[in-house]
């Protein structure tokens, strides 16, 4: 167990290392090299001084270790478009909004996705299953931003029930109801494709478990279907679904860029898109590395949880 965790931790470190290395190569291969991290409007003299300070005159491997050290100490440099503000500071400032939205979408995925998958599996091949399967198929094919636009048309423009943008209305900051109304559409749009994925996963995991011998034994003992489903199948069928967390997480985080922009949600996704639109390279690199690290850590956490939930899994 301890060895497994150590190995898992090590591989997370390697992944993180890969991310940082890839970003370094991106900067090196960029037209102009590291100068993309500098403000374009400075004089040649200033540029030369900055280049020396940034270590541009050093050999590439020294530059690489500098980059590694800077990133590991949380020094992502300064934003170009936002008046030289510290990238780390901006990222930390935007983090809560993204966490709030992402966790809501994740919650929605689990609460909606797993039961729906079970319903589909229990009704295998009849009309209910077919309708649910069709909708999960549809959910995977719908562009999330378009779904968002359509929801805005319906619920904000036509019905005027829900606000079309923002995290809360100004002046109404503590009202739970107000926050919830702002949250509904972004969370639904962000969660749609993960819900669809998890429905399919749960369904097939359930159907696989149903065919196992111990279920046949339970059935031949004459136990009721209800009892078999919820006492015998559910507990085993649910376990592989947890791996979906690892699949849904990058999906939700990646989707946040589009959804936050569409709904003017003040989170990291919108920050990344704004940075990309303004060619603010240090900022977008900082956000990307930070988000990747966060996702890698969450995955590590879930993997640690896995053997706790399923004692059959023993890592040597």
């Amino acid at each position, binding site marked *: 167990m301890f060895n497994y965790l150590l190995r898992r931790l090590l591989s997370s470190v390697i*992944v993180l290392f890969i991310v940082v290395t890839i970003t370094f190569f*991106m900067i090196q291969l960029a037209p102009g090299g590291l100068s993309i991290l500098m403000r374009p409007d400075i004089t040649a003299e200033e540029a030369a001084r900055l280049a020396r300070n940034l270590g541009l005159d050093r050999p590439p491997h020294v530059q690489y270790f500098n980059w590694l050290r800077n990133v590991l100490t949380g020094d992502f440099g300064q934003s170009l478009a936002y008046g030289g503000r510290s990238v780390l500071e901006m990222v930390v400032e935007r983090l809560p909004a993204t966490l709030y939205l992402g966790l809501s979408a994740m919650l929605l995925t689990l609460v909606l996705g797993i039961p729906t998958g079970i319903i589909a599996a229990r009704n295998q091949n009849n009309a209910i299953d077919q309708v649910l399967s069709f909708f999960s198929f549809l959910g995977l094919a719908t562009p999330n*931003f*378009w779904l968002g636009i359509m929801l*805005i*048309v319906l619920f904000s423009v036509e019905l005027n029930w829900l606000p079309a943008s923002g995290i809360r209305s100004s002046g109404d900051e503590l009202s739970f109801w107000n926050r919830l109304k702002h949250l509904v559409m972004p969370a639904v749009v962000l969660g749609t494709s993960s819900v669809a994925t998890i429905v399919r996963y749960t369904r097939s995991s359930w159907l696989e478990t149903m065919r196992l011998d111990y279920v046949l034994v339970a059935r031949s003992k004459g136990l009721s279907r209800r009892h078999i489903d919820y006492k015998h199948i559910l507990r085993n069928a649910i376990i592989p679904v947890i791996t979906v967390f690892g699949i849904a997480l990058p999906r939700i*985080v990646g989707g946040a860029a589009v959804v936050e922009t569409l709904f003017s949600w003040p989170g990291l996704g919108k920050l990344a898109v704004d940075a990309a639109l303004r060619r603010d390279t240090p900022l*977008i690199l900082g956000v990307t590395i930070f988000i990747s690290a966060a996702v890698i850590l969450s995955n590590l956490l879930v993997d640690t949880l896995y053997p706790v939930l399923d004692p059959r899994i023993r890592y040597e």
Partner: protein
Amino acid sequence: MSVQTRNIRLKESPGSRSKTIWKRARWLLGKNKLAAFGLIYIVLITVTVLIEPWLPLGSPTRISLLDQFLPPSLEHPLGTDENGRDVLARLIVGGRISLAVGVAGAVLTVLIASTVGVISGFFGGLVDQLFMRLVDGLMSIPTFFFLLVIVAIWGSSPAVLIVSLALTRWMAVARLVRSEVLRFKNQEFVTAARGLGASNIRLMFHHLLPQAVPSLIVATSINVGVVMLIEAALSFLGLGILPPTPSWGNMLTDSQYYIWYAPHLAVYPGLMILFSVLAFNSLGDVLRDLLDPRMQGNEP
């Protein structure tokens, strides 16, 4: 190929071994109506975007402020947009770009994936370890943000989009190819070829890679849909195909602001994306049943 065709057994169609692949394709399409419509849709769209230059349509890019938000008419079958441009012409020209990026991106994805997968599976050892750690790594991070980085640095020409989409999508397919190679690399026909003096390159690309072709065809079809979705999202954000060139994604960028005057502007491009992705996904499902019966019912 012979190894696989011998193993094909379709539960639902007794005697399928005597049927040709076309007969089985027709049978599968008859069973999966969505995929049948999908195939028709794909053919129709492809033909339309290819013959667009000869169609009697308005200009997709000429701005005419006198013709803003015109309702559908004979001259403009789907009306005009906020700049007085013909919506149908824009849909068709935009479709050509969206489809081209989707297909090129998917093909490049599969090319990268095949190369990595074959090398990784064939050589094993350290090479395999390195590639597979890279695959694990890239699969566990939100690659959409890397796309944003790439676009911020290199701009968003169609070529950059295609390459960067492929570079962020090849991992799952590479894993698939690798497992196929592992399955076959110790079989007699490979040993025999090696005995006859075939080089490693020949073994990899002539003997082993063809075993993965059925899975690769399926992967290509599904990836066309996924790449189109991502391209549309980037274009919507203003980071993909840039105006004045229309694409289904960037046609939606401003549509939400004109929702009062022209709700249809937000509907058509979205539906085109949705139908295309549905079509390629369901076609992928049918191809899987047709070419690779081992995969049936697994993979959600």
